[in-house]
């Protein structure tokens, strides 16, 4: 096979490529820095292949539209940044309880509020998990390279379709706007998953059938006339006040994720086997961390990197295991301490855990991380 041609592409463009590859044919969004390029690419590409692009009146309408379109049977995407992600939270919760697959990209910028629109940040990690009210499942992916944004966007759609749930892609502005040479995969090269369709006739269909962990989802307009609501509901989709059924469903939507963590988790490891000092980091910060770990090894310190590509569900098992083998886990992140608390919880006192935090709109550089690694030599 001839070597595939590389393309120089920006992270946000790669995200759009990944969505198209995964079969996304519906985009609704609202302009916001630093994610707008995703909408721009989708607005050009979708109509060429029979897809739909709409610029909605606001962020809230955008998530509403992708949920509606998903119910009509399409794979759907919206993209935003911190302020828009805040506005989408109620819709995100709706997609969780009503179990509607969709993908939301949050290209993280400095906050709070309008903050620093063109500056990088990793301060929406907790928002991706806890932003919407009520207990709910969360899947969130955190790519760090332009090529990986493409492949992880495909995986985000796959997970959304497989588990009938919204999936959030989180990456910082640096990765979103960085240009790197990437390869567009051939059709069939990466697995693409479509949601399960009901195998039964309409009269036997229950959209929230508790006999399944993830019930098949029929599209609207194909003879399966059913009800969808954000209220706690029974297996037929209609509201209920029955405490037993409410609890059963609230627990089931959590179990969808909890029982499949091994399928959803994905980490990149660098030099962890003999590591004495471990760095735990995502996105652009992980790129600095990898450089720092390498440099540390050059000066005789056994340093490694654990880079979660799935940030929610949190990689508890990997952290717990590594915490028993290392002296310290260093957690550099572009916020005032979000992942570091989770790492401390998972490490459970087995090793020292130290955060490196930065909220001045500048990236965490390798030297900053190396200095802290050296403390634990």
């Amino acid at each position, binding site marked *: 096979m001839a070597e595939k041609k590389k393309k120089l592409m920006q992270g946000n463009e790669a995200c759009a490529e990944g969505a198209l590859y995964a079969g996304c044919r519906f985009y609704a969004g609202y302009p916001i820095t630093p994610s707008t390029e995703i909408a721009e690419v989708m607005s050009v590409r979708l109509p060429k292949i029979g897809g739909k692009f709409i610029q909605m009146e606001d962020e809230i309408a955008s998530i509403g539209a992708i949920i509606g379109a998903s119910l009509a049977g399409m794979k759907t995407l919206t993209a935003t940044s911190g302020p828009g992600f805040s506005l989408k939270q109620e819709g995100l919760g709706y997609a969780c309880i009503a179990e509607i697959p969709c993908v939301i990209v949050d290209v993280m910028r400095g906050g709070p509020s309008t903050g620093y629109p063109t500056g990088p940040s990793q301060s929406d990690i907790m928002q991706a998990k806890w932003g919407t009210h009520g207990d709910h499942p969360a899947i969130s992916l955190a790519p760090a390279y332009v090529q990986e944004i493409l492949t992880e966007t495909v995986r985000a759609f796959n997970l959304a379709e497989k588990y009938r749930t919204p999936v959030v892609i989180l990456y910082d502005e640096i990765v979103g706007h960085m240009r790197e040479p990437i390869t567009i995969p051939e059709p069939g090269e990466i697995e693409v998953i479509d949601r399960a369709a009901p195998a039964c006739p309409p009269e036997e269909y229950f959209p929230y059938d508790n006999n399944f962990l993830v019930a098949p989802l029929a599209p609207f307009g194909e003879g399966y006339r059913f*009800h969808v609501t954000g209220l706690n509901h029974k297996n037929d989709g209609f509201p209920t006040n029955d405490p037993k059924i409410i609890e059963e469903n609230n627990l089931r939507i959590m179990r969808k994720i909890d029982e499949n963590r091994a399928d959803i988790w994905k980490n990149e490891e660098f030099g962890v086997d003999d590591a004495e000092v471990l760095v735990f980091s995502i996105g652009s910060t992980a790129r600095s961390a990898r450089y720092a770990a390498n440099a540390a090894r050059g000066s005789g310190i056994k340093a490694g990197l654990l880079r979660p590509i799935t940030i929610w569900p949190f990689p508890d098992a990997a952290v717990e295991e590594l915490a028993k083998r290392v002296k310290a886990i260093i957690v550099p992140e572009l916020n005032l301490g979000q992942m570091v608390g989770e790492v401390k919880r998972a490490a459970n006192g087995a090793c020292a855990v130290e955060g490196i935090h930065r909220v001045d709109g500048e990236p965490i550089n390798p030297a900053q991380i190396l200095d802290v690694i050296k403390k634990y030599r």
Partner: protein
Amino acid sequence: MSAQAVKQKVSVPFDYDKYLRPGKLPHIWCPGCGHGIVLKSLLRALDKAAYDKNDICMVSGIGCSSRTPGYVDFNTLHTIHGRAFSFATGVKFAKPKMKVIVVTGDGDALAIGGNHFIHTCRRNIDMTILVYSNSIYGMTGGQYSPTTPEGSIATTSRYGNIEPPFDVCEMAKAAGATFVARGTAYHTLELEKILFEALEHKGTSVVDIIDSCPIYYGRMNKFKSASQMMDVIEKEGTVSVKQADKLPAEKLEGKLLRGVLHKVERPEYCETYETVIMGKAAGK
């Protein structure tokens, strides 16, 4: 055939069961509420239009009127407060063959959903919007809404409402809706005709339906009964556009016009996307 049999055939009742989901009644609406009457007119209009039930999608937000989708045998989507228009836009744009109906209330459509309402009208995307205007937030127990008349009492306007109400029809028209009408729960046969025309219109059709909430709005504003409230607000408080032409201005003061108030042809959003955007994209 006997005379008796002929008589029976003539009086065959309308088969509401054809459109109602079995086992979902009684509904949640209070005694005297007009929402059930509006639903009746809507089902009759839909029957006349004879759409395939599989193609009908009813979308609602949050509130008393937004509970309607739970009772009807269509593809039904009960969404979040104020956002029914956005979800409906997603369904329609993704699958233009769907007949999309949005059922909403004055608070849902005009306060929290006001932005989505005007932009839906502006796009002229093909859907029929029924705004059940009873001038109160009923589900939460009687707070003033964007259609509550000035001076009215609500649980959050104990000293009288100081905010002027929206005219739903004027707003829809200004925003770009291509079919705008007003009916009432009192004029049920007229409402059925208006709803049929709205459903058959290509583009965004908005029907403002004057309806009353005797339990909250009625009690707080000293109405004697549900029927007296209908008489005052829906019967005496409105004039049909046909009658209005013949009446002197002083007789129209303070009254809302009923009937089809605005009807124009303008390209529909989904069709324009296909012809213009997809057409140009294919050429590039």
